[in-house]
């Protein structure tokens, strides 16, 4: 497939438009990651380039074990790439992640990155509202927190309302349904107004109907609050709704459309 043909095939994405006016939030260049096993080297990521702009929704699809979570962890600064760079464009200039110490990486995670996991990962001993407030607590000293407690609580209430769970503040996470827990997790991820939300299979554990309402929530957040999303998913209907759709094959983003990838997978499945 020639470059020319590919260009005809593909709908225009913001990546292709150098004049896209929206500022860049995240830039990943040549990310690769290998694991040293007992007697071999397992190459998981083999040079990933990715640019995410403010207000964009980017989806990553790919077969299980292809390295999607690994990529998300590297971008989320929980893991480090074997080579390549991750650059965050913040208000006061770009920051290159590989040059940062643990303290600064933690700060970046706290202030600018929000995580949403497949298994929600709420703290079970902590009420819904306190789970949402947690990122604000991590950032502040006790005195600082006490001073701003009222605003912080207001903001958490607002977020709970935004994800459609107003009035559930004091409930324990254990008493919530899966979909509700994921909403709380999203609200928590939004608490510190991150530049980017990283979601690893956010609907992977939910039934189709709940997934669908969750998709609507993502779109709604994206449209109304210009929340920037990078999500990994196995769910084509969610991936299709993203503005930018990436397909990962063998540790690289492959230049095929989502539809081609889905077709290809269906054919593979049928062949089996």
């Amino acid at each position: 497939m020639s470059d020319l043909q590919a260009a005809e095939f593909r709908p225009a994405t913001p990546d292709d438009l150098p004049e896209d006016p929206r500022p860049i939030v995240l830039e990943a260049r040549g990310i690769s990651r290998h694991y040293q096993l007992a007697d071999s080297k397992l190459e998981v990521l083999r040079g990933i380039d990715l640019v995410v702009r403010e207000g964009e929704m980017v989806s990553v699809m790919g077969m299980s074990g292809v390295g999607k979570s690994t990529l998300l962890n590297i971008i989320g600064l929980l893991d480090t790439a074997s080579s390549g760079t991750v650059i965050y464009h913040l208000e006061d200039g770009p920051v290159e992640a590989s040059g940062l110490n643990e303290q600064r990486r933690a700060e970046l995670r706290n202030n600018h990155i929000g995580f949403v996991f497949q298994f929600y990962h709420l703290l079970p001993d902590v009420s819904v509202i306190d789970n949402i407030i947690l990122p604000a607590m991590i950032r502040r000293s006790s005195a600082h927190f006490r001073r701003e407690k009222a605003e912080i609580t207001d903001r958490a209430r607002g977020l709970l309302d935004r994800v459609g769970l107003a009035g559930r503040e004091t409930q324990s996470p254990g008493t919530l349904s899966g979909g509700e827990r994921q909403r709380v997790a999203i609200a928590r991820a939004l608490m510190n107004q991150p530049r980017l939300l990283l979601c690893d299979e956010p609907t992977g554990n939910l039934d189709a109907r709940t997934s669908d309402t969750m998709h609507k929530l993502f779109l709604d957040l994206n449209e109304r609050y210009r929340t920037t999303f990078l999500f990994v998913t196995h769910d084509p209907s969610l991936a299709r709704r993203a503005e930018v759709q990436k397909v990962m094959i063998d540790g690289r983003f492959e230049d095929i459309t989502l539809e081609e990838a889905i077709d290809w997978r269906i054919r593979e499945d049928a062949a089996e």
Partner: protein
Amino acid sequence: MQYHGFLMKRYIFRRLIPYAAVLAVAFGVFSLISVLAVMEGFKEEMRGRIRGSLSHITVFSRFSTSLIGSGELVERLLELEHVVAAAPYVEGVAMYRANSITPCEVRGVDILAEAEVGDFAHYLLRDSEIEMLLKDDTAALPDERDPLTTEEITSIFSRERRAHKDQLNSVFGEEREEGFRVLPQPIVVGIEALRRNTRIGDQIELQSFSPRTLEARVQSFIVVGSFQTGVFEQDQGWMFIPLQAAVSFFDLFDEEELDDRVSGVSVRLDDYRNVDKVRETIREEVIPYLAHPEVVVRTWEDQRRNLLRAVDIEKRIISVMMMLIVLFAGVMIFLILTLMVIEKTRDLGVLRSLGATRGGVISLFLRQGMALTMLGIVLGSIAGVILVHNINPLHDAIYRATGLRLFPPDVYYLAKIPTKMRVSDWGVVLIPAVVFGFLGSLIPALWAARQDPIKALHHE
């Protein structure tokens, strides 16, 4: 950071198990405080008694009972600063026959001078007190009692008293048949000897050897009185006789020197704290100028070093044993926090992903461990102080309720359990508690911080 206190409340104070660690710390601290206070009180009491029954300083002959020129030595010592009294004494070992043959330590003293150099007047007993102590083995003298007056002391040792042996006997209700030709010398025996072996008015026979001639000596004495120093060994084995009686019993008159040989000279100071200073002065300014300078200077602590050290070592051993409880508490904190790290591994992954640093995680667990430790220390200290201050009423209550005496007064003649809290003992309690608590928290805290957040998030 705010989340530390917030999570701490939920992780430890809203659960039951962590309070077991608090109790363990509290119990360790409580035991240490109360045991150390009683041991220290007891030690002080012992020191006081030994100090009273021994003089502050003794200057004695390097060879057994051969100090010549004690008169001159006494004079010189009395000239020194801080010295308020000095008196010669003779001491020797003897066997005496009463019901059975028993060894004893005979102390020949100048009766009145001895009252000045030591607490002789304080531990010598009046007849009425002897009667009371003999009636009840657990009876103890009142804390505050007047020392015997000079007249009372002389009357105990007096010729009249010995002559009226019948009268002595009648005081204690016993008629003795045998008479005596020579008026025997008086002897004062310890209250324990009186309880077991002999009676007031008894004639006892002492047997020994003369340190000068090495010949066997036998002599009869009449028991005229008793004393209680509060140190069992002394109350069992010591016997006081007048100095001159001792000189003649041990045959100590030296024909060549025309002087009595004595064992040494006891010295009393104005203040016990000057003891080291005065010892040096005696060594440097008195001994070299003596006609017979073969003498040694000892403080009472030098003399009773072994006994005092035994009490000290006992205290140390018990503190170490008690520290095992505190160590155990530290281990409990370690276990509880380790279990918590395992249980909360996923939470740790979440916290790290939300922006908590490694240092923050260490701090989270350290604080929890130290909060448990501190709470335990505070509770244990309060309980310990309360017990120490109320130990005697409590002991009495237990005695009344169960008839059990945990601390029988006849063993140490203590009407009350003595206690004393020393600042250094608080250190012995608090420092190990804090150190063990800290170590018990540090290890799980470091382990928690080492968890890889990605693996932690996948932890089931």
